[in-house]
């Protein structure tokens, strides 16, 4: 904080910070790379066709020309980064450049062939669904002052509970309910350990993650499978009438499995709850300055219990996505660390649900991109080899490390996070 304020107080000079130079150099090298790709990586005159399942070809672009234009734009932005007079416009330009670079990759991959763009966006939204739900769970928890690294464990338990409830009650919606309850239960354990017993919150979270792996595996192997209840099937797509018939956007947003809809609705609700209701204000106060909140009569620990448990229930829906949402079975460890990626999305999104959603979309897009790269197998110029899938599979996680390390943007955790509160 102190460092920041001195920066602000200092009269605005044209001196450059190391970060500006770094970003500028990065942009410039990406620009040069794109130009090289345009020159050597695509056939002259090759066109990239973007298609849709229903409509057919949406639009085609001349690949080399598009790459030259976007490469030039990157060089322009690299220059603009060095000119401080532009103020916040520079940030906008940088994000625009990131967007265009992603698009340039698509054009390069697609040159001479075609790519289903809406399908890719749909895959992005699907992959972002559990991440966003997990991120919202984390936000509710941490905004109230409790660190939550147990999202993974909550989701895994919920994924299992969803299958069990669906099998027992014969309804997917009961499965969602079961997932909510299981997530809430694991969250309650976390809350009791960290609020009542003031256990280190990282340790408590770790315990829950380990417990979830063992407990779900045991119950699945010894109870669910012998009873023949391990494959209850999964949610099909739900079409919203009329809206789903809108070209491109319709299938993307209004023809999806229910967890996606629930995620979008919760996104609006949680945003409203945290930032527009008195309850949200009190809850945030508990995470920033619990003593002050207590002084004006907020029950800090009760607020924290409620927030953590609601968060767990939301994480539970994220868990249901994996089992009854997509495939209809439970597999050991099927959440595959997505709960931790959700944490990264939360931090990237600056403890803000909308930010978390955008971050999740970015991760989802990186994943969808690597899939399409494997399918289309664009050949790298000079090296004459396709990009190895292992590298592409690691890409979203490399991105996560970069984000968590704070290279992109600056995120600010709630001030009182991780500190137990005792009434004096």
């Amino acid at each position, binding site marked *: 904080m102190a460092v920041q304020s001195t920066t602000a107080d200092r009269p605005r000079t044209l001196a450059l910070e190391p970060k500006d130079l770094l970003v500028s150099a990065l942009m410039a090298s990406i620009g040069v790379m794109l130009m090289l790709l345009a020159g050597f990586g695509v056939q002259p005159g090759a066109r990239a066709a973007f298609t849709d*399942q229903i409509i057919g070809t949406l639009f085609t672009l001349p690949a080399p020309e598009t790459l030259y234009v976007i490469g030039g734009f990157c060089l322009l932005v690299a220059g603009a980064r060095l000119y401080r007079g532009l103020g916040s416009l520079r940030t906008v330009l940088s994000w625009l450049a990131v967007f265009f670079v992603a698009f340039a990759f698509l054009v390069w991959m697609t040159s001479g062939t*075609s*790519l*289903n763009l809406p*399908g*890719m966006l*749909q*895959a992005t939204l*699907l*992959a972002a669904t559990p991440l966003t739900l997990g991120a919202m769970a984390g936000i509710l928890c941490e905004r109230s002052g409790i660190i939550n690294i147990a999202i993974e464990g909550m989701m895994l338990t919920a994924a299992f509970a969803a299958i069990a409830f669906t099998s027992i009650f014969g309804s997917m919606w009961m499965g969602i309910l079961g997932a909510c309850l299981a997530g809430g239960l694991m969250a309650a354990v976390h809350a009791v*350990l960290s609020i009542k*017993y003031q*256990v280190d919150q990282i*340790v408590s979270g770790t*315990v829950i993650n*380990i*417990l979830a*792996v*063992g*407990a779900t*595996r*045991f119950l699945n*192997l010894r109870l669910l*499978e012998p009873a023949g209840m391990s*494959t209850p*099937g*999964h949610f*099909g*797509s739900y079409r919203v009438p009329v809206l789903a018939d809108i070209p491109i956007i319709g299938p993307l947003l209004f023809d999806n499995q229910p967890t996606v809809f629930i995620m979008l609705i919760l996104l609006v609700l949680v945003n409203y709850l945290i930032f527009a209701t008195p309850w949200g204000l009190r809850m945030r106060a508990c995470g920033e300055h619990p003593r002050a909140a207590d002084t004006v009569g907020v029950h800090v620990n009760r607020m924290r219990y409620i927030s953590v448990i609601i968060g767990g229930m939301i994480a539970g829906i994220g868990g249901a*996505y*994996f089992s009854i*949402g*997509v*495939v*209809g*079975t439970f*597999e*050991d*460890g*099927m959440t*595959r660390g997505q709960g931790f990626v959700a944490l990264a999305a939360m931090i990237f999104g600056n403890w803000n649900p909308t930010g978390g959603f955008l971050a999740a979309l970015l991760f989802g897009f990186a*994943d*969808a991109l690597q*899939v*399409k790269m*494997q*399918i*289309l197998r664009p050949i790298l110029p000079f090296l004459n080899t396709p990009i190895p*899938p*292992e590298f592409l*599979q690691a890409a979203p996680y490399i991105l996560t490390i970069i984000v968590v390390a704070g290279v992109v943007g600056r995120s600010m955790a709630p001030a009182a996070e991780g500190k137990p509160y005792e009434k004096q």
Partner: protein
Amino acid sequence: MRKSVGLLMAGIMVLAMVLASCGPALPEGCKRGDVKVGMVSDVGGIDDASFNQNTWEGLKMADEKLDVCAKFIESQAQADYEKNITEFAEQEYDLIITVGFLLGDATEKMGKQYPKVNFGIIDYAYDPPIPNVKGIVFNVDEAAFPIGYLAAGWAVLKDPADPQIGYVGGMQIPPVEQFIVAYAAGAAYYNQQKGTNVLVKGVYVGDFEAPDQGKIQGNSLIDEGVDVIFGVGGKTGNGGLTAAKERGKWGVGVDVDQYFTLPNEKDILITSCMKRLDNAVYSVVESAAQGKFTGGDVYVGTLSNNGVGLAPYHDFDNQIPADLKAEIDAIVQGIIAGSIPTGW
């Protein structure tokens, strides 16, 4: 109060650890004089409806029919391999079957450490050989090649304007690539014979236990026009078949006849590319029970010894044209005779 918290935490930790490692079944039910056979699974789990489960079927068959006592330990993570092998070796098991290519290094190390124990490893052949380790490998390419041909023929039949076939693979390791290379070669052979242009597109997910990713990536393939999806990679591949089912496309199963293991997707499976681990493991265990186990060599499952094969067409038996079936049969004979190369 502090003490009770400590106890609570310790209790939860212990519970978690116990549950996380459903430890080795005690050799209960073993008769004196039985040949003790232990199986160390790969991380997919004993109930994976393909790879590990099929191996275990072979061991169970041996347990029932021969004077053999079979047990298994499931590996939770790749770091568990050596620990689990040691578990059996220390209990003086006679034969330890390790299931899968990824256990190659662990088996080599433990084989040298316990020279008196015999080992059999699925999908691995050592060069130079290790005297007490038998490699069990499968020429799955011999079965995948005709399946590539069949899938191409089916795609041409159902989508003559833009026939494409695809695959959703697990990790990109040789036993998976072996399927896929021959599958693609089979499609290429079809193109060459018929003058068609059936494209082959595919994805490696990098994981054998990610059905959600398999499904998203299967959908991605279908978005690009793929008509038949070959799911090669445990549960990940099954996710690809789920995508095919939802989108009204077709699929090919792997390892076992998945018509019987995937109740939700069975009606879109035109066939399965079978790798008869059960037969192979049974014959290795049988030789051990008869005292004829030989280490340092390799068992090869082929089309001719029923180590690999095509599953029946089941629901598609009436829909696949007779001449396509006849061509498939001819190709199978050609591969057995060695006149058709599979591309692997």
